[in-house]
């Protein structure tokens, strides 16, 4: 029986088991004693050595490496304990990792054998609300060797590898695409583990050893909680690192790995020239989508947890909320929702006023329209029933191409149509937004329909349609919606939109992602959506004009305050493109890319 690589549910839809501390401790015990699994031969560089690692603000660790997989370690002069460990070398860097038997704690250590500098990653389970999620604290220091002066310098948090992207293949066979479009988050696509349909995001650390050697970490917060750390050699495209956590089947994932990479590219950075600073943002108590973590707690950092504060509604609650309030393109001051998302939006167009047409979708309805005014239309579905008046807004993004949106009043799932109409070619594409979806009733869903426009003087094509495109795949576009509100989209798979929010200093900050689709309307004109699944439930639709570098779009959202359709509009900059199309080609040999 053939097997597909796709999971039954993607990471953001899985119900991750709430493992208890007792369960975690019990499952770690055997691997703590044995040491991490490994596919490559372990390094024996440390075998027989005794050394002490001194950190500036963290623990002092005294190691005795009894062999290439057994050590004893004493923390801060305490009692030495035995543990299994695994070490791997990458040029002048030796990386090793171990757990502390009988606890939920472990360490990953990066030693620069040339400079003597070291960075210790203290790792522990049980530090977050989900006990399975690995916490980390980072301690910079040095290797204290007899007769050797401690180095004055330290490894440092940096933004120097922000904007890079890699394909990695571990010695385990696992293949990933990994992007660093932020100084504090990263984005990863599991090509082999889950088939590469969607990319996901996690809080990350970026630490500079030297100009070609960096340390990267990622915690799969909100998902498995697995922690990944590796040292990267940028020139040789090699990595050595550790993966620690519990997988979707709650099995321990604890192994050191070696990997080889491919260069995907470098996109732009937007900090001021000369700014190479890095390091995470601290938690902001009270912020939406966050723990109320103490900013002074060990290892504290801002972690985006959107589902935590998302108001989850039933169908009855949705229906009641929509019955109470439908805000369709009302001015932002009236609380249309997403008030800051269109300060830089283009003015709406009255170009459809006075026109009548039928938009006939191949796999959807035939929508008859009478555009009575610049903001008022009547619609009828499938040539039957009464005409319904609706408020709409339209924007003419390119000559003859309009994006328009309206609510289908009375539709059982409160549908909103976001439509791109090309009057010069008689073509239309609709992102049909709706609610009453399976996971949370107020979370938006979307169907994509291709079709034609029938109107006076328009003869639509018989076979031609707008089509999905991979021309945006790998691209990163910034979007300045309003002063102080700028994001960057990264189109990391044919079905993913990731968004990165810039900090006040222009660094990439928090990042999240959701499903998306991309339709080519004309050259340099694309219709796309992102869906905030397991996040804020919004459907964002935008018509991207890569000549004017401006979008025109519509957000569709439902919450306790009701349903809204509101303008989205921003000025764009092209941050660059990662070369990733080949990783998504479906080839005939066994269906593998």
């Amino acid at each position: 029986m053939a097997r597909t690589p796709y999971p039954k549910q993607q990471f953001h839809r899985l119900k991750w088991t709430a493992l208890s501390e007792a369960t975690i401790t019990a499952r770690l015990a055997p691997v703590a004693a044995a040491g991490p699994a490994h596919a490559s031969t372990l390094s024996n560089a440390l075998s027989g050595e005794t050394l002490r690692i001194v950190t500036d603000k963290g623990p002092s660790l005294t190691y005795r490496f009894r062999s290439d997989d057994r050590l004893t370690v004493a923390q801060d002069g305490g009692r030495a304990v035995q543990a299994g460990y695994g070490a791997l070398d990458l040029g002048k860097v030796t990386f090793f990792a171990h757990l502390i038997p009988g606890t939920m704690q472990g360490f990953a250590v990066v030693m620069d054998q040339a400079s003597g500098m070291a960075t210790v990653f203290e790792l522990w389970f049980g530090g977050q609300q989900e006990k399975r999620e690995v916490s980390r604290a980072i301690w910079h220091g040095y290797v204290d060797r007899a007769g050797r002066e401690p180095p004055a310098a330290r490894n440092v948090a940096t933004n120097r590898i922000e904007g890079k992207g890699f394909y990695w293949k571990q010695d385990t066979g696992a293949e990933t695409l990994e992007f660093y479009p932020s100084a504090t988050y990263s984005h990863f696509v599991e090509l082999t583990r889950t088939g590469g349909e969607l990319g996901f995001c996690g809080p990350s650390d970026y630490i500079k050893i030297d100009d070609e050697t960096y340390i990267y970490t990622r915690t799969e917060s909100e998902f498995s909680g697995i922690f990944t750390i590796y040292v990267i050699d940028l020139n040789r495209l090699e990595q050595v690192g550790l993966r620690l956590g519990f997988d979707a089947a709650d099995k321990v994932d604890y192994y050191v790995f070696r990997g080889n990479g491919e260069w995907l590219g470098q996109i732009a950075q937007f900090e001021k020239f000369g700014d190479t600073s890095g390091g995470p943002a601290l938690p902001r108590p009270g912020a939406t989508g966050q723990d109320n973590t103490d900013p002074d707690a060990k290892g504290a950092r801002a972690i985006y947890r959107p589902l935590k504060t998302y108001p989850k509604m039933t169908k009855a609650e949705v229906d009641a909320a929509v019955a109470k309030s439908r805000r369709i393109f009302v001015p932002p001051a009236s609380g249309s929702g997403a008030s800051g998302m269109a300060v830089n939006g283009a003015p709406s167009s009255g170009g459809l006023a006075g026109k009548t047409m039928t938009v006939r979708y191949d796999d959807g309805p035939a929508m008859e329209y009478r555009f009575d005014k610049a903001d008022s239309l009547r619609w009828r579905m499938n040539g039957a029933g009464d005409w319904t008046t609706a408020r709409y807004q339209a924007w003419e993004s390119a000559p003859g191409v309009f994006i328009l949106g309206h609510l289908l009043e009375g539709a059982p799932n409160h549908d909103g149509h976001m439509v791109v109409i090309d009057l010069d070619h008689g073509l239309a594409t609709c992102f049909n937004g709706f609610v009453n979806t399976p996971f949370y009733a107020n979370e938006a869903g979307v169907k994509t329909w291709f079709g034609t426009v029938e109107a006076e003087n328009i003869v639509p094509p018989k076979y031609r349609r707008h089509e999905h495109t991979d021309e945006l795949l790998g691209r990163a576009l910034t979007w300045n919606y309003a002063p102080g509100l700028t994001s960057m989209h990264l189109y990391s798979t044919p079905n993913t939109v990731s968004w990165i929010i810039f900090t006040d200093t222009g660094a990439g900050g928090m990042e999240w992602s959701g499903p998306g689709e991309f339709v080519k309307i004309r050259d340099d004109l694309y219709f796309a959506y992102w869906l905030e699944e397991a996040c804020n439930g919004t459907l964002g639709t935008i018509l991207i004009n890569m000549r004017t570098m401006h979008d025109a779009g519509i957000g569709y959202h439902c919450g306790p305050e009701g349903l809204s359709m509101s303008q989205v509009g921003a000025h764009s900059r092209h941050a660059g493109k990662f070369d990733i199309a080949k990783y998504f080609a479906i080839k005939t040999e066994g269906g593998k890319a």
Partner: protein
Amino acid sequence: MTTEAVPSRRSFLKGGVMLAPFVAAPAAALAPDDSRSRLTRLEAEMAARSLHADLLRRINTGDRIGAAALFADPRSARIDANWITVAAAADAEPDAIDVSADGRRACGRHVCMVETISAMALDSTFAQMAYAQGGGHVRQTERKVMIVDYVRNEAGWAIGQVQLTSA
């Protein structure tokens, strides 16, 4: 007659006050009463400029209580919490200070660059994420005219009220 004005003028110059309009005045034409009223006016202007400089310094250092203390009635001091910095516009005309005939009130017109910060409505995913990482606000610098009413009471000169208008 004019000699009385000279020391005052020097003291103003030490304080960095612009005196071009007064230097240009035909000093020899001044009558004793003119001279007294001019001195009163110059003292009022100096006090107003000094108060304005103090106000800006205290706003810019975040000393809101100290800034309010410059007002005749500190409790009614209206200093917008959104102001981060207020600085004299480098290319503006010199501040204009009009002093009332009785020398007890003055009105200053100061062209300023005002940097403000205002909280963003957290009604979108992106705004919420920006807030969570320490942002979620809008910083803007605008050219404004600060109209300041100064009053002279028993304790000396103080600020009556402050108003910002479009430049």
